[in-house]
C-alpha cells in the first residue's frame, strides 16, 4: 500500500522527486503496472492538487509552442494552437487509447513511458520536439530523440521531472499525416505507425519530408534513406512512391513481437509509404508564418 503525497507547488514536487518518489500523472500506465506488480512504489506523488500553471498549460512563445507535461491528450486535441500548428499530433492522439484514456493520460506520461509504440512519439519526432527537464538546480532542454534511449528508458536524472515539451512551429511543411495499424481502432497498441511531414513545391513535388516510425524498432525509428528517395517525387506519381516503398523495406530492421513478425512489419512499412501517394492527406492549416 503506497503512501500518497499531494504537493501544492512545483518546489514541493521537485523536493519529493529528489527524494526518489514515483510521480503519478494520468495513471493509465502506472496503475496497470502496479496491478501487475511490475512496479511497486512505496510512495506516489499525485499531481492533482498542484497549482503550478507550467505543467498544465499550452502556450505560444513565438517560434515554438510550449506544452505542459501534465496536459491530457483530450485537452491537446481540443487546443486551437495544437490544431493550427501540429495536425500530425492531433491525428495521432485521436488514435490513442479511448475517450476515457485520452481524458486521463498526459503527453508527459506518454513520453516517460517511452514505449516504441507510444502514439504521440512519431509525431513529436518529425516535429523536432524538445523536452524540458526540471530539477531543484534549474532546468535543461534536449531533443526528444536523444532523450528516449530505449524501451521504457530515458535520459531523465533521478532528481528531475519532465516539465514541458517545446515544439517548433513548422511553416515549411504543407502536409501532416499519421497512420496507425493495429488489431482494432481503439485501445490497440500499434503494430506499426508512421508520422509524416511533407513540404511541396508549387508544382506539388516533394521538396522536404520527415518520416518517423512507431513499433518498428526499440525506440522510434527514422528512415533518412527513404526520405532522400522521396525528394523530388510528384505527389500524384505512384512510381516514385513504389520506389520509396521498396527502399523503406530494405532500410528498416523491424522487431518481431507478440503483435506481429518482422516480415509483416517490413511489408506494412512499405504500404504506409505508398499510402502517402494514394491517401487523403490533411493539409496543414494556415498559421502565422505558414506558406
Amino acid at each position: 500500500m503506497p503512501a500518497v503525497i499531494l504537493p501544492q507547488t512545483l518546489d514541493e514536487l521537485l523536493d519529493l522527486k529528489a527524494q526518489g518518489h514515483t510521480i503519478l500523472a494520468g495513471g493509465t500506465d502506472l496503475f496497470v503496472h502496479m496491478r501487475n506488480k511490475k512496479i511497486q512504489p512505496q510512495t506516489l506523488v499525485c499531481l492533482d492538487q498542484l497549482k503550478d500553471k507550467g505543467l498544465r498549460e499550452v502556450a505560444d512563445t513565438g517560434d515554438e509552442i510550449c506544452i505542459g507535461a501534465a496536459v491530457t491528450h483530450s485537452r491537446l486535441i481540443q487546443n486551437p494552437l495544437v490544431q493550427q500548428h501540429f495536425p500530425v499530433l492531433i491525428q495521432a492522439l485521436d488514435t490513442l487509447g479511448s475517450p476515457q484514456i485520452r481524458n486521463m493520460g498526459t503527453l508527459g506520461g506518454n513520453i516517460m513511458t517511452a514505449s516504441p509504440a507510444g502514439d504521440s512519439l512519431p509525431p513529436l519526432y518529425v516535429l523536432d520536439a524538445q523536452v524540458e527537464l526540471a530539477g531543484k538546480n534549474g532546468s535543461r532542454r534536449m531533443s526528444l530523440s536523444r532523450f528516449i534511449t530505449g524501451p521504457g528508458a530515458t535520459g531523465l536524472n533521478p532528481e528531475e521531472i519532465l516539465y514541458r515539451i517545446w515544439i517548433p512551429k513548422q511553416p515549411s511543411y504543407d502536409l501532416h499525416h499519421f497512420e496507425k495499424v493495429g488489431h482494432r481502432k481503439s485501445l490497440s497498441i500499434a503494430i506499426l505507425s508512421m508520422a509524416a511531414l511533407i513540404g511541396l513545391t508549387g508544382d506539388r513535388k516533394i521538396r522536404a519530408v520527415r518520416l518517423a516510425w512507431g513499433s518498428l524498432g526499440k525506440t522510434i525509428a527514422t528512415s533518412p534513406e527513404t526520405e532522400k528517395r522521396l525528394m523530388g517525387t510528384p505527389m500524384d506519381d505512384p512510381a516514385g512512391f513504389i520506389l520509396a516503398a521498396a527502399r523503406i523495406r530494405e532500410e528498416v530492421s523491424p522487431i518481431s513481437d507478440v503483435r506481429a513478425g518482422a516480415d509483416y512489419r517490413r511489408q506494412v512499412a512499405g504500404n504506409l509509404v505508398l499510402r502517402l501517394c494514394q491517401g487523403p492527406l490533411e493539409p496543414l492549416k494556415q498559421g502565422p508564418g505558414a506558406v
Partner: protein
Amino acid sequence: MKLSFTLNHNALTLETEPDRRVIDLLREDLGLTGTKEACGEGECGACTIRVNKELRLACLMIAAQIEGCSIETIEGLAGPDQALHPVQEAFVQAGAVQCGFCTPGMVMAVTDLLEAIPDPDETQIRKALSGNLCRCTGYQKIMDAAQLAAKKENKCLP
C-alpha cells in the same frame, strides 16, 4: 485521509485510505454497485464515471485524485423521483441490455456524448463508445439506443 468531494450532486466528506481505488470506494465503501469492474486495467470501460464532467475510469484512479472533484455515477442519472434518465429509457426501449454488465459504462458514455453533441451522427456515436466493450449485444442495439436517446433529448419523440 479526509476526503471531500461531490458525489451525484451531493457534497460528501469521508475518511479513507488515499490509495483506495475509486472503484472500490464507490462499490464497497459507498454501496454504489452500478459502476462495474471487469478488466481492471482500462481496456473495457465498464467502470466509466464522470469526474468534473469528463469520462474517466474508476479502476485507474485513487481516492486522493478526486479531492474537491465532482463525481457522477450511473446512480446519479435518474431524476429526483427516480424516473429513468432519457438515455436509460432509450437503452430499455431499444433492447440494448443483455447481461447488463457493460450497460452503466455505455450509458455514461452516451450521456456524456449527448451533452456535448445533442444530435450526433453514427461516426460520432461509434467514437464516443469506442472505449466501452460489450460481449453480448454486437453493439447494434446500443447504437440504436444512442440514436433513440438523441431523438428523445431533442424532443422529436414523446
